[in-house]
């Protein structure tokens, strides 16, 4: 196993850590302070609606990934399996249920409050529905709101789909949120939050686009999952999130201006040998070891699809304060895993060209059929369309039984050798031939 030292943190990461600590403290005292708590999912979340009604969101996938990073997921998963859940099914679900069976202790060591509302705004993942059906049984009597987000099966969002979503939001979801919150939704407040969201989204996109420069000042996958945190979870729409993204943006622009390479847990990278595009979520149980394999080899992930699960903002979507409910509907339907496979392949192709990508790598996740089913065909399509080397590794989100460090390292090293060889061949070719 690789040795992992104390992580080096960027300034924005420190701010984010403070934001998270504040949130979990608020959550731990929510019941005594009379704050209502809403459990919901990350993709297609309705955070602004929840916050505009002074409720606090909890994201079960975030609990699960935090448990994975804190090395607690293995025992949580086993507890869920003892309860009857198959070894075959999504480990996020089992980890979350196992965590609940063990007292629902959050990442800061404080107990998470039980939900007052389960808000199932499920986008791009059928298993979310099964997950909440299970949670509903585990929290008997809890209020439930369901938002069925149609899939972009035809490669676009249709007017019928928008109407369906808006009707659900206006007639079912918002009334249920208001009922639980005990107050009416202040639409002006919601609009203000969406305006904040939009500004933060502008900054986030600039951060993502910084990776187009060579060398890239950021890693868009391993560091990207930290960068996306506030926007994809409990803080979108808040002044605090805006402040965070301004800080992050300034920090990255400064790095870009100085020609600096990405920060890793072991400090700044010194060389960018390979520019990669990664499809699929990361592994959380061995996150830093996994990352280290890449930065030790000078591989920078300049674009990733996982950082689009909470919104494909770099393709133009913004929350719209002038059209709040429709904009929330469009947001839900626009997240990456709600895109059809042809749309996903087109987006990958676009990234390969825009970000001057040397290689395309899939981290195929056992637990996540939404991502994984079809990836092997996507890989073939990309190889055919772009002619760049493609790599394929397998792991899991939070089940350490499915992370084989040696296998993954071997496979990646072979892949990097292939990339290096290709680069050297391309370097020897005349410029016209390369083009």
């Amino acid at each position, binding site marked *: 196993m690789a040795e992992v030292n104390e992580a080096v943190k960027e300034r924005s990461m420190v701010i984010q850590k403070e934001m998270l600590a504040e949130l979990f403290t608020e959550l731990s005292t929510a019941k005594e302070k009379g704050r209502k708590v809403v459990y919901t999912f990350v993709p297609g979340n309705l955070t602004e609606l929840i916050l505009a009604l002074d409720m606090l969101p909890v994201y079960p996938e975030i609990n699960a990934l935090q448990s994975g990073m804190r090395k607690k997921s293995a025992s949580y998963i086993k507890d869920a399996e003892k309860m009857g859940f198959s070894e075959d099914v999504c480990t996020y679900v089992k980890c979350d249920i196992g965590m609940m069976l063990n007292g629902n202790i959050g990442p800061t060591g404080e107990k998470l409050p039980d939900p007052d509302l389960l808000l199932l705004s499920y986008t791009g993942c059928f298993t979310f529905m*099964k997950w909440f059906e299970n949670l509903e049984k585990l929290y008997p009597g809890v209020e439930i709101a369901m938002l069925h987000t149609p899939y972009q*099966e035809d490669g676009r969002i249709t007017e019928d789909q928008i109407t369906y979503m808006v009707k659900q939001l206006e007639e079912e979801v918002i009334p249920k949120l208001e009922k639980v919150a005990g107050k009416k939704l202040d639409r002006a407040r919601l609009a203000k939050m969406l305006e904040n969201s939009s500004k933060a989204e502008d900054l986030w996109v600039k951060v993502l686009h910084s990776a187009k420069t060579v060398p890239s000042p950021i890693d868009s996958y391993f560091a990207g999952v930290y960068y996306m945190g506030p926007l994809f979870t409990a803080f979108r729409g808040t002044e605090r999130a805006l402040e965070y993204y301004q800080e992050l943006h300034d920090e990255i622009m400064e790095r870009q201006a100085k020609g600096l390479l990405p920060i890793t847990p072991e400090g700044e990278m010194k060389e960018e040998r390979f520019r990669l595009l990664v499809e699929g979520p990361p592994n959380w149980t061995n996150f830093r070891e996994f990352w280290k394999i890449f930065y030790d080899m000078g591989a920078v992930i300049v674009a990733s699809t996982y950082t689009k699960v909470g919104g494909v903002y770099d393709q133009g979507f913004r929350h719209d304060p002038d059209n709040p409910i429709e904009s929330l509907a469009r947001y839900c339907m626009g997240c990456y895993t709600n895109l059809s496979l042809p749309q996903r392949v087109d987006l990958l192709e676009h990234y390969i060209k825009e970000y001057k990508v040397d290689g395309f790598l899939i981290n195929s996740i056992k637990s996540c059929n939404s991502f994984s089913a079809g990836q092997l065909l996507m890989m073939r399509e990309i190889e055919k369309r772009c002619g760049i080397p493609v790599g394929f590794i397998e792991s899991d989100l939070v089940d350490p039984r499915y992370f084989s460090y040696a296998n993954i390292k071997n496979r990646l090293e072979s892949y990097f050798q292939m990339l290096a060889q290709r680069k050297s061949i391309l370097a020897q070719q005349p410029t016209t031939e390369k083009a």
Partner: protein
Amino acid sequence: MTGIKQPPARLAEILRTCEQLAFDLEFTHAKAWRKAADDRLLVGYLPIYVPREVIHAANGLPVGIMGVGDHKRIIKGDAYYQSYICHLPRGIIEMALDSNLEDFDGFLFPAICDCVRNLSGMFKLAQKGKFTRYFDYPQNFKEHIGGTFFRELIETVESDMFKLNGVKVTPERLNHSIGLYNRNRSMIEAIYDIRQEFPWRLSAVDTYYILRAGLVMPVEEHNAILEEVLELIGLDHGEAMDNIRVVVTGSFCEQPPIGMLKSMEMAGCYIVDDDLMLGSRWTQGDVDDTTDDPLGAIVTAFLEKSPSSSAVYDVGNPKGARLVDLVRHRHADGVIFCAASFCDPALLDRPELQKACDAAGIVHINFQFHENTGQFKVIKEQAGTFSDSIKLWV
């Protein structure tokens, strides 16, 4: 002579035909129907449910594509799917890459899980069929919200078909089709009712052949077969065995191999109900076939008369209670949970369904399978032990 009345010869003949049709992965019968007229269309659909009435009314033949089971060797399909993804889609992509699905005009992929959802995208990328739709039926069950959305979804399919054959789905045509499928479902339920009392007259495997054959032929032909079967199993034949009665659940999509069903039966379990061909039994009761708005009647039936299923959001209508009701209704002794490996919807439902059974005092056992599982010895032994334990102790 043993004194046991032998099953009618005609029944054996029908069963042979149905078995052959059910597992004809070239879909010969359906393709022959298609070729008989230019304006006919073949529309393949995956498990579980599509409103077949609408396809029928548009002069199409809805053809159920239930996987390849153990009837086709997977060569290319495994290269398209990771080992941790269920078996059904790899068989279907194998068929798509071979010639099995040639002559199909369109494909519908019902919204039952992420694998089937993404398979719809794979068909689009591979440019299979003249139209491919992910059939994203609503999880909101209010008429003016989910109902309106569902209606628009069906109209899109109607439009896809109209562009190909110019056949307009009129209220008259649709009411006629609804009537045929009402008859089809009511006869299937009548078969299950007879089997509830006399399960030895038609085995679960034979029932399966009859229902699955119905997925590849016009409903009119299937209705004729069902009528005959009903008449034949109404006659006294065979002899009751000292078997337990079980409900099999969890196999609504990927289908267990026939050998597995046979093993359960041979181990002493009469399967008195199941969700194997759930799409053919979807609507619980009739759809109104007398209205000026038959499409509205189909929508209402979906919202109000859908069965318990892992693919339908169950809040307000818990699946556990519905399973317990089914067990009681069929006077079953126990439940066999029988889900495909890596089937998230079925396997994520299982713990809560088991809890509901426990609370109701219903015993249960659990198996997992792939559609091409080839070893049944363990399953037979476990099902036998389950059966014996019920006979001895329950």
